[in-house]
């Protein structure tokens, strides 16, 4: 468990470092994910060493987004000022993206293997 946590945090740190050094337009944690994937592919990190910690964190992934969401309360006034284009734009676009993305993938890849 502890080993897994150290690895996950270590890869996040490495990701943050890489972003800082290269100025890539990607967050450190996403970069850390890519680095961990590479380490798994190269066999540097064994899947078993992260499984327990990763499964525990992923089980509560939804929870970790809650505090960021509460921050929306600070901007109610901003949203209320032009609520119609903001709300309709967000809703319409979210569904459009799901349809375009999903249909493109399905059209090119087929409905089954």
């Amino acid at each position, binding site marked *: 468990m502890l080993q897994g*946590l150290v690895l*996950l*945090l270590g*890869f*996040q740190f490495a990701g943050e470092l890489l972003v800082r050094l290269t100025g890539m*337009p*990607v*967050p450190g*944690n*996403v970069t*850390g*994910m*890519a680095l*961990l*994937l590479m380490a798994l592919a190269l066999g540097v990190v064994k*899947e078993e060493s*992260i499984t327990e*910690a*990763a*499964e525990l*964190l*992923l089980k*509560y*992934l*939804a*929870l*970790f*987004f*809650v*505090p*960021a*969401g*509460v*921050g*929306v*309360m*600070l*901007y109610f006034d*901003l949203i209320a000022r*032009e609520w119609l*284009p*903001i709300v*309709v*734009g*967000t809703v*319409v*676009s*979210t569904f*459009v*993206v*799901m349809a*375009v*993305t*999903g*249909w*493109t*993938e*399905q059209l*090119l*890849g087929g409905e089954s293997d």
Partner: protein
Amino acid sequence: MTDLVANPLFGVVLTLGVFWLAEQLYRRSGFILLNPVFVAICGIILVLKVSQIPYADYAQGGKLVLFLLGPSVVALALPLWQRRKQVLRRKLPILAGIFAGALASIVSAAGTAWLLGGSHQVVLSLVPKSVTTPIAIGISEKIGGIVPLTAALVVMTGCLGAICGPEFCRMIGLKKPTSIGLAIGTASHGIGTARILEEDRLAGAVSGLAIGLNGLATAILVPLLWLLFGWS
């Protein structure tokens, strides 16, 4: 009393407690509109507003919970690694889907808001709304959007995808977990991913992949489009 509220313990207990209640409510009702993330966010905001506790006090504990988001995103490498064969088999459709989705997101969000008379700044703030927060903030800043508004919209988009993403995807005829996961991850980043990961491992893995790749695609497409069409 006020010093106790500003103690990180308060924010942590409130976040975990309200989320736990929201999960119970979701499990027992089985009603998709009662998505735990969405209900927990609304519940905590309500508690803070009613008791007139400043957001800054809550955030002392909130940021401790938020801290765990970092290693959790790194952990998304695990389901992706475990399902690598299925993902690699469809790598080209997946990449094409992400780019098509990123383009559709920019155009449809800005276009709809513009048609409805949104101000220039609001229209620009909507552009990166499907992208994970750190990237969305960077893009909004660069193109002249209102950064806090973008951050709020990213959360709203994520909740929307988490609440009705899987149902909507099945409704429009998406069959494979890769198609469904890709659609949800590209449209609603991590919050959508958190829900689909609970329902299907492969869909969750692809959704997690889409968080990073859509971020990258949007970060590449926005300056290109701006250059191409001379927008500012």
